[in-house]
C-alpha cells in the first residue's frame, strides 16, 4: 500500500507540472474532437497523433501523457455522434446509440450528453482506482484466462445479448449470425487459408470492424434520413437546454457502478475491449431492470449510462496487462505500447522499478485526464447539442463526409469507401425489414474471438470438448450465462403468479 501511495505522489508531481497539465488538457480536447468523428476512435486517434507527439521532441513522460489524454478524449468523444446522429463514433460506442439517440430525438440531447459524460467520468475513475490498487494481482488473473475461458466468456456475452431480442427473436438471431458470417471473411489465422475473399486482396485481412460499424450504422442512417426527408416525415429535432439531473443520477447510480466494474474486468482481459464490455454491460442491466427493461431502447437513462461507464472503464482496464506484463489488452494499448517502445521504454514487470516517473506519471495523468474531460465536456454539451440545429439538408451530406474522412484516414484505401456504401445499402434494407443492427455488430466483434479460441481450446485438449467445462472460471461464466437467460424469465413468472394470487 505504501509503495502505491508514494508512487502516486511521484506520479502527481509529474502530471501536475503546468506544462504536463496543459498537455493533458490539450490531448483531451483534440481527442474528443477526433473521437467524435464516426469511425475514428481511440485506436486511430492515438495512431494518427503519435508521430506528431514524437516529433515535438517532448520528454517521454510528457509525450505519453499527451497520448493518454488523446486516448481518453477519443473514448469520451465516441459517444457524441452516437447520441446526436445515431452513428457510433467508434466500436465501444455502438450500444450508446440504443438509448442515447432516442433521448436526443425527444429533445433531450443536452441531458443525454451530460449524463453520459458523468457516467464516462465515473467509469473511467473507478477503473483507474481499481488499476492503481490491484494491477499486479489482476495481471496474473488476466493471463490465466485460457482459450476455453474465452469461449465461456463469449457464451456469456451472447447470453446477455438475448435481452436485446426485439419483436422478432428469429431476426435477432439471424442478425447475430450475419455478423458472425461477415467475421469469417479473410485469412484464417490458424491455417492461413483464405475464406470468402474471392481473390480480392482488400478482403484478405478481413473487413475492418470500423467499416462494418460506419457502413451499417452511418451510411444506413444517412439513407433513412434521406428517405424521411424526401417524404416530408422528418421534423427538425427540438433542442432544449436540458441537462443531467440529480434524479437521473440517483436512478442510474447502481447501474454506473456495476457497469464500471464489469467494464474494467472485461477490459483487463487481453483481446476483449470496450465493445464487448459495453455490450455485456447493456445486456446485463436490461435484464436486471426487470419490468423496466422494456423501457431500454426508448431513451432510458440507465440504458445510456450502462455502456458509457463500461466502455470507459474498459479503457482503463486494458492498461493493466500492458503496463504490468507488456502484453497489450486492446488495439489502443497496442499503439501506446508502441509509443513506449519508441522512447526505448520496455513495459513489463520492471517498468515500475526502472521508470517509476513514467509509470506513475502515466497513471496520475489518467486521474487528471478524467477530471479534465469532465470539465471540458460539460460546458461543451450545449455547443455539441446545437449541431442538431444544422438543417437536415446539410447534416445528411455531412454524415457521409465525416464517415469518408474517418474511414479513409485509417489506411488510405479507397476500396473501403465503396465497402461502407455497400454495407450502408444492406443496412438500410435490414432496417426496413425491422432487423436491429446491434446484434449484427456484436456478432461481428465476437465472431473471431469465439471461433479462434474454440479451435485453440480444442487443439490444447486434442479434440476433447471436456476442456470447455474444466475450470472454475469457465463454469462460473456458464452459470452466469444461464442466470442471465433464465433469471428474468423466472422472476416475471413469479411476479405474474403473485399477481394472480393477489387478484
Amino acid at each position: 500500500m505504501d509503495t502505491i501511495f508514494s508512487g502516486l505522489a511521484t506520479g502527481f508531481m509529474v502530471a501536475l507540472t503546468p506544462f504536463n497539465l496543459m498537455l493533458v488538457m490539450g490531448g483531451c480536447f483534440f481527442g474528443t474532437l477526433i473521437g467524435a468523428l464516426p469511425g475514428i476512435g481511440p485506436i486511430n486517434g492515438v495512431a494518427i497523433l503519435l508521430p506528431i507527439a514524437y516529433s515535438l521532441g517532448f520528454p517521454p513522460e510528457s509525450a505519453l501523457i499527451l497520448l493518454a489524454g488523446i486516448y481518453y478524449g477519443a473514448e469520451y468523444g465516441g459517444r457524441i455522434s452516437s447520441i446526436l446522429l445515431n452513428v457510433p463514433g467508434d466500436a465501444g460506442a455502438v450500444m450508446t446509440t440504443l438509448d442515447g439517440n432516442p433521448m436526443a430525438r425527444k429533445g433531450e440531447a443536452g441531458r443525454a450528453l451530460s449524463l453520459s459524460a458523468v457516467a464516462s467520468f465515473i467509469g473511467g475513475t473507478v477503473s483507474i482506482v481499481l488499476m492503481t490498487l490491484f494491477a499486479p494481482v489482476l495481471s496474473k488473473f488476466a493471463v490465466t484466462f485460457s482459450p476455453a475461458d474465452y469461449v465461456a466468456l463469449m457464451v456469456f456475452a451472447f447470453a446477455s445479448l438475448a435481452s436485446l431480442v426485439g419483436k422478432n427473436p428469429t431476426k435477432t438471431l439471424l442478425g447475430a449470425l450475419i455478423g458472425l458470417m461477415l467475421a469469417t471473411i479473410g485469412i484464417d489465422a490458424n491455417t492461413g487459408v483464405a475464406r470468402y475473399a474471392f481473390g480480392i486482396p482488400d478482403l484478405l485481412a478481413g473487413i475492418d470492424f470500423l467499416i462494418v460499424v460506419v457502413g451499417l450504422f452511418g451510411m444506413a442512417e444517412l439513407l433513412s434520413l434521406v428517405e424521411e426527408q424526401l417524404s416530408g416525415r422528418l421534423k427538425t429535432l427540438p433542442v432544449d437546454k436540458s441537462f443531467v439531473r440529480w434524479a437521473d443520477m440517483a436512478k442510474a447510480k447502481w447501474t454506473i457502478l456495476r457497469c464500471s466494474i464489469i467494464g474494467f474486468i472485461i477490459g483487463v482481459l487481453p483481446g476483449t475491449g470496450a465493445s464487448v464490455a459495453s455490450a455485456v454491460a447493456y445486456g446485463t442491466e436490461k435484464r436486471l431492470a426487470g419490468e423496466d427493461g422494456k423501457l431500454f431502447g426508448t431513451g432510458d437513462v440507465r440504458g445510456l449510462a450502462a455502456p458509457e461507464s463500461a466502455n470507459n472503464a474498459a479503457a482503463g482496464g486494458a492498461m493493466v496487462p500492458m503496463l504490468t506484463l507488456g502484453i497489450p489488452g486492446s488495439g489502443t494499448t497496442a499503439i501506446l505500447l508502441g509509443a513506449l517502445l519508441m522512447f526505448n521504454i520496455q513495459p513489463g514487470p520492471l517498468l515500475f522499478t526502472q521508470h517509476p516517473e513514467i509509470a506513475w506519471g502515466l497513471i496520475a495523468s489518467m486521474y487528471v485526464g478524467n477530471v479534465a474531460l469532465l470539465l471540458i465536456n460539460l460546458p461543451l454539451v450545449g455547443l455539441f447539442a446545437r449541431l442538431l440545429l444544422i438543417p437536415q439538408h446539410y447534416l445528411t451530406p455531412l454524415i457521409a463526409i465525416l464517415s469518408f474522412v474517418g474511414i479513409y484516414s485509417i489506411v488510405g484505401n479507397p476500396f473501403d469507401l465503396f465497402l461502407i456504401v455497400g454495407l450502408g445499402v444492406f443496412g438500410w434494407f435490414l432496417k426496413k425489414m425491422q432487423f436491429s443492427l446491434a446484434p449484427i455488430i456484436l456478432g461481428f466483434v465476437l465472431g473471431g474471438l469465439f471461433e479462434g479460441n474454440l479451435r485453440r481450446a480444442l487443439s490444447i485438449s486434442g479434440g476433447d470438448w471436456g476442456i470447455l467445462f474444466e475450470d472454475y472460471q469457465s463454469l462460473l461464466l456458464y452459470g452466469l450465462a444461464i442466470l442471465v437467460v433464465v433469471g428474468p424469465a423466472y422472476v416475471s413468472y413469479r411476479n405474474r403468479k403473485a399477481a394472480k394470487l393477489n387478484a
Partner: protein
Amino acid sequence: MADRIFSGVLFLVTLAYAVIAFTSIKAPFQYDPLGPETWPQLLSVVALLCIAHVFWRPDVHDAGVPRMMWVRLGYMVLLMLAYAELYERLGFVVSTMLYAGTASRMLGAKLVNAAIFAGVAGIGGYLLCSVILDMNLPFGEWFEVLLSSGE
C-alpha cells in the same frame, strides 16, 4: 411480401456461403480437431434455418417505399459511389465540394446556400483534418500529376 423477397435474396446468398463452406474451404495441411471449414458450416446451417423461418412467417408485408422514393434513394447511393470513386482522383477538397453541393441541393437547399456549404465542407474540412490534425486525406492524383509535370 417485402420480407419474402428480402429473405429470398438472403437465402440465396447464404446458400452460396454454405456451398463454399462445405465444398471449397480446405486446409492443405492441418490436423486440428476443427478446421477452417467447420465454423462457417455451422453458421450457414443455422442461418439457413432462421431465414427459412422468416420466409415462412413474414412480419413485414410492405416496405412502405413508393416508386419515386426508390429512384431518389438510388440517386443518393450513386452520388455516394461517385464521391468514393473521385475521392482519390480529385482529392478531398474538390470531390467533397462536388458531393456536398449536389447532395444538399438535392435535399432541398437553395443554390447559393448549397454552394456556400460545399465550400465550407471542402476547404474547411481539409484545413481542420489534414492541416491541423495531420490526418491522411487525399490531395488528388490529378493535381499531383499536374504539379509534378510542372516542376
